[in-house]
């Protein structure tokens, strides 16, 4: 049996990001994404700014995923949370297929925004795992394959499948017929 290595020195390899250049390059993409999901220009612009603020908390992931994919995922989550808070069912315009599915996913609790020990415990012992709603939007609303979805969120394909299975029962008849 291998002895467990005990480590005392913490890592501190913070990823440096330049928000200004990321905003200039990816801002239009993020705005289009938010506009598409929210169907309202003003709300889309607000959400777009929230995405770049939230990016600061995800700088580590920039080393593992292309910025466009990471920003797309963050924008999806931000917009899902906005849809839930707005509680505007079938009132928004927009070119998103499966609006009913999107809004149902938005209603599910997302513990990813909580921070601190309590949030971590909540994530483990209750509520949906982080980003399951986002995974469902990427696969069933956006149409990404399982492999493309996995690459976008930094999970394995089996991990993505497991997340989708976990949501299926909760959404019942709204869940797409094609199995993940």
């Amino acid at each position, binding site marked *: 049996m*291998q002895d467990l*290595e005990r*480590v005392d020195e913490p*890592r501190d390899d913070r990823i440096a990001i330049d928000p200004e250049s990321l905003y200039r390059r990816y801002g239009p993409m993020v705005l289009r994404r938010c506009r598409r999901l929210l169907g309202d220009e003003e709300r889309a612009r607000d959400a777009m700014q929230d995405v770049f603020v939230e990016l600061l908390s995800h700088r580590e992931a920039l080393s593992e995923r292309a910025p466009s*994919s990471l920003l797309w995922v963050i924008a999806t989550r931000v917009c899902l949370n906005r849809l839930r808070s707005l509680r505007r069912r079938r009132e928004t315009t927009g070119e998103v*297929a499966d609006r009913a599915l999107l809004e149902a996913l938005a209603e599910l609790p997302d513990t990813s925004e909580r921070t601190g020990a309590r949030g*971590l415990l909540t994530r483990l012992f209750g509520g949906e795992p982080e980003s399951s709603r986002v995974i469902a939007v990427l696969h069933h609303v956006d149409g990404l394959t399982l492999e493309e979805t996995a690459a976008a969120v930094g*999970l394995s394909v089996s991990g993505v499948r*497991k997340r989708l299975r976990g949501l299926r029962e909760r959404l019942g008849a709204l869940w797409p017929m094609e199995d993940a």
Partner: protein
Amino acid sequence: MKRRDAVPELLVERLRLGELSSQEAARVRERLARADELDRLRVPDEPGFSRMPDALRERLARTREREASRRRHASRGWSLAVTAASFATMALVLALPTAGLRDKGGEAPALVVYRQLTTQRDHEALADGARARPGDLLQLGYRPGSERAVAIYSIDGRGIVTTHLGPTRAAAANEQRLPTAFRLDDAPGFERFLLVTGDELAEAALVPALRTLAARPDARTAPLVGPWRVVSLTLDKAPP
């Protein structure tokens, strides 16, 4: 239901940004051409992105300051909490009967793997199937639920078994964190953590079962056979 033959908008955006490999870009262009949707590559200019708005710049500055402040205040709290938890766990095991502490609701045991982020103070809980890299600094936590005994092991893609917590009596029903963190090594494929619980656990029975599991070609998903309950959480160490 989104048409499976439609080109996802994320791929179109990444093509516009030049973030696809030449092969991927060619495939996406071909799909768009087949669907007569090459005009999706053209989008109107979005005004207002030549520079970041001052309001957003200020929000980012405030967010950075809040994060820095939180790290400063939490810096003693994290290490103290880990130290206190380990002492508290020892005290409870020695001084109190386990029956008085047990969660009698039949609650299921749970396992959590925390990964340190940028500093010792920031961390995230990893889900089953999450990606991990050699050198990632991890800390384990568990909740025994209504079980009397717990142990935590891991097996990796090389077939190596590691003890994280030898069989011990479950001191309390709430979450316990192991007092030390550890770094993932460069074993390929996966690192699978197993929280083993039951009425009684003995290494004499666990070790052979773990070695048998670790030697299997399907060690990543096969069950740990024996008179115990297992919660498994696997990290994917495959290259991106």
